[in-house]
């Protein structure tokens, strides 16, 4: 059977899945937990606690700041030290709630048992109830982007959802958190998928997994057949070719159901698909069935020079340096500490930055891996054009951005760029293509927004 994949472009970086076989361990509680108010796409959350307040694990400390927003819950029990600014993954100081940790007392409403709850046992779970519980629990996209999940489950009136696609691709090198999650919590993930399908009012579901995870494919295919075989739901585990950016939303939809999402402002639901990360599916299970808001997540801590790469169940708010210390401490050489993988991760300016809702990995690149080579002039080899998964011409967009030709940038579809970095990865001349394109894209999007605002 031909392995499916997306239609245009793509690259094949080295896997480096160093922590593939490391079973997930529970990370130790931090001494002080930092909760930036902006951990998701949309308006920052608004604090509902003040200095000196006592909180438990699962206490809401910030409410949603708007429609496109999500509440934040404390992952620790202790006392609120202050509401101040702290450096987050963007490199800037942003408002954050800082809590001094004391013990590990949980809110009573959270069900901490290991019993697998099923949808059949809970007839009270209407689609609206499921969406509401997801919203209240503050579940956002766990793949890194952090879009509030409940909004994705309520498509705009112009679009009709036909299926839910679970993104278990994990195409970025180094990251293994989703893989371990699938091996260890497969039953819960499938209940989560069922909840998502019910909430979205669809009966078809897909789980996309790259072929470099054969154990996960086998396990989930087996469990899917047992769980959904003969039920109203049609769920298929789809093995996908190992290629970056297979896990990009649009590429995944193209690979799984062979439909291409048009240029922005179109979104996957415009072609009938709702895409959710497998970690989000798990968070949905916990939120809906265990009344557990989102405050901890599976994170990979990895790097070639790290003594013991591993996968951890981390409470959000834990500073990265704690995790790095558990794995053997920072390497001697000059290094980059990335929140995320090497292709799309953000380089951190400090290891005090806390783990947030979208932190799927802490990747440390050292020595030669951490520095870029000197760029040379463009040799017009067109390899970037072949690599671009969106069918754009990166060499041209980079040049137009550098000379500030915004009109032409717009007509060359710069807003379709998904910032995957395939072009810069491929360029033999080591040109900073994405650096330029990203600046151009932001400027053009600003121009388009102000143009629409004037109308």
């Amino acid at each position, binding site marked *: 059977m031909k392995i499916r994949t997306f239609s245009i472009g793509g690259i094949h970086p080295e896997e480096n899945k160093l922590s593939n076989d490391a079973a997930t361990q529970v990370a130790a509680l931090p001494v002080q937990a930092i909760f930036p108010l902006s951990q998701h796409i949309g308006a920052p959350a608004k604090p509902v606690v003040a200095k000196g307040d006592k909180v438990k694990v699962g206490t809401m400390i910030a409410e949603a700041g708007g429609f496109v927003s999500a509440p934040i819950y404390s992952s620790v029990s202790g006392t609120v030290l202050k509401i*101040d*600014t702290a*450096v987050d993954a*963007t*490199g*800037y*100081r942003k408002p954050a709630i800082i809590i001094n940790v004391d013990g590990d007392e949980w809110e009573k409403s959270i069900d901490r048992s290991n019993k697998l709850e099923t949808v059949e046992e809970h007839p009270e779970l209407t689609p609206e109830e499921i969406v509401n519980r997801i919203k209240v629990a503050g579940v956002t996209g766990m793949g890194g982007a952090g879009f509030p999940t409940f909004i994705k489950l309520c498509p705009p009136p112009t679009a009709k959802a036909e299926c839910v696609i679970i993104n278990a691709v994990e195409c970025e090198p180094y990251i293994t958190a989703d893989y371990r999650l699938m091996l260890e919590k497969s039953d819960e993930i499938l209940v989560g998928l069922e909840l998502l399908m019910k909430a979205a009012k669809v009966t078809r579901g897909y789980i996309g997994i790259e072929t470099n995870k054969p154990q996960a494919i086998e396990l989930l295919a087996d469990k899917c057949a047992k769980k959904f075989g003969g039920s109203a739901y049609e769920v298929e585990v789809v093995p996908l070719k190992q290629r970056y950016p297979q896990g990009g939303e649009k590429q995944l939809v193209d690979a799984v159901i062979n439909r291409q999402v048009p240029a922005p402002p179109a979104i996957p639901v415009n072609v009938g698909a709702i895409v959710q990360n497998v970690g989000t599916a798990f968070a949905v299970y916990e939120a809906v069935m265990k009344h557990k808001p989102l405050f901890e997540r599976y994170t990979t801590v990895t790097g070639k020079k790290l003594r013991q790469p591993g996968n951890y169940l981390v409470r959000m708010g834990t500073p990265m340096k704690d995790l790095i210390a558990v794995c053997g401490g920072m390497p001697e050489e*000059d290094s980059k500490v990335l929140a995320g993988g090497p292709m799309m991760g953000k*380089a951190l*300016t*400090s290891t005090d930055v806390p783990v947030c809702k979208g932190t799927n990995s802490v990747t440390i690149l050292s020595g030669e891996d*951490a*520095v*870029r080579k000197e760029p040379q002039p463009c040799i017009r080899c067109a390899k970037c054009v072949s690599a671009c998964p969106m069918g754009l011409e990166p060499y041209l967009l980079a040049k137009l951005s550098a000379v500030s030709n915004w009109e032409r940038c717009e007509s060359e579809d710069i807003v379709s760029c998904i910032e995957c970095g395939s072009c810069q990865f491929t360029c033999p001349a080591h040109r*900073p293509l994405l*650096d*330029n394109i*990203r*600046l151009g894209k*932001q400027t053009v999007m600003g121009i388009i927004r102000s143009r629409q605002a004037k109308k």
Partner: protein
Amino acid sequence: MNFMMIAVAVLGVIGLVAALVLYVCSKKFAVYEDPRISQVAALLPGANCGGCGFAGCSALAEALVKGADAGSLDGISCPVGGQEVMGKVADLLGMAIANGDPMVAVVRCGGTCELRQKVVSYDGLRSCAAMNACGAGETGCGFGCLGCGDCVSACQFDAIHMNPETGLPEVDEDRCTACGACAKACPRHVIELRKKGVKGRRVYVECVNKDKGAVAMKACKAACIGCGKCAKECPFGAITVENNVSYIDYTKCRLCRKCMAVCPTHAIKAVNFPAPKPKAEVQTEATPSAVKPAAQPKASTTTKQEEEQA
């Protein structure tokens, strides 16, 4: 000979026919342009820098003529040509213009390489816009100058250059035309257009850091900590402290420099003032040197009043 005559005649006829065609075309397809537009354009500097907000000098000339017909030249002026040029343009169009003060670009960051230590190393496209998108930059201050020189690239008058020792840009005030290109290019809005001031003297806060005092000081020894002493000291109400940073309103500042004396971090800078006399002589000449600065503000105040009355 015959051939030559024929050749000359033929070429001559072709030339005449072409001239006739051109003449007819120039009359029939002529576009009427108000002659004043080209007259005004001739007075403008012709640099096409865009500092006026229009797409070049001829576009500005058009806008000025339209403005004159509409009754006012307010808001349409050439910052590069300044008062001199605008005066001539106004005379040509039979209009009056408000007297504007000459402006100059001011870099409001004092975080030199020495005072503001690097905490990380940036590897990538050497552009302020790119570094700004990456994070706070190489230091702990997320508001200050990034040092990659986007402002230098934007300047068309060779009026701003990076100082390699301090890592900050320096404005050559003789060349600066206050077109605003550097201010627009700076992603941190560190550069501001301020009044050049009498005798080129101006006082401003050399910091735009909005972090709390302790955080700002940790990142940079010359930071404004928002203590507010300057605002309390200013006799003219020209200083406001907002978001942990102080700002001097250049329309109200009288250049008395009392704020400078009380600033604990020396974040307030004064430009083009005479150097203070050495300490030993200050005791005896206390009165004269104390009077001198006081006299100047008075002089400039009166001049301003005279101007306003004019």
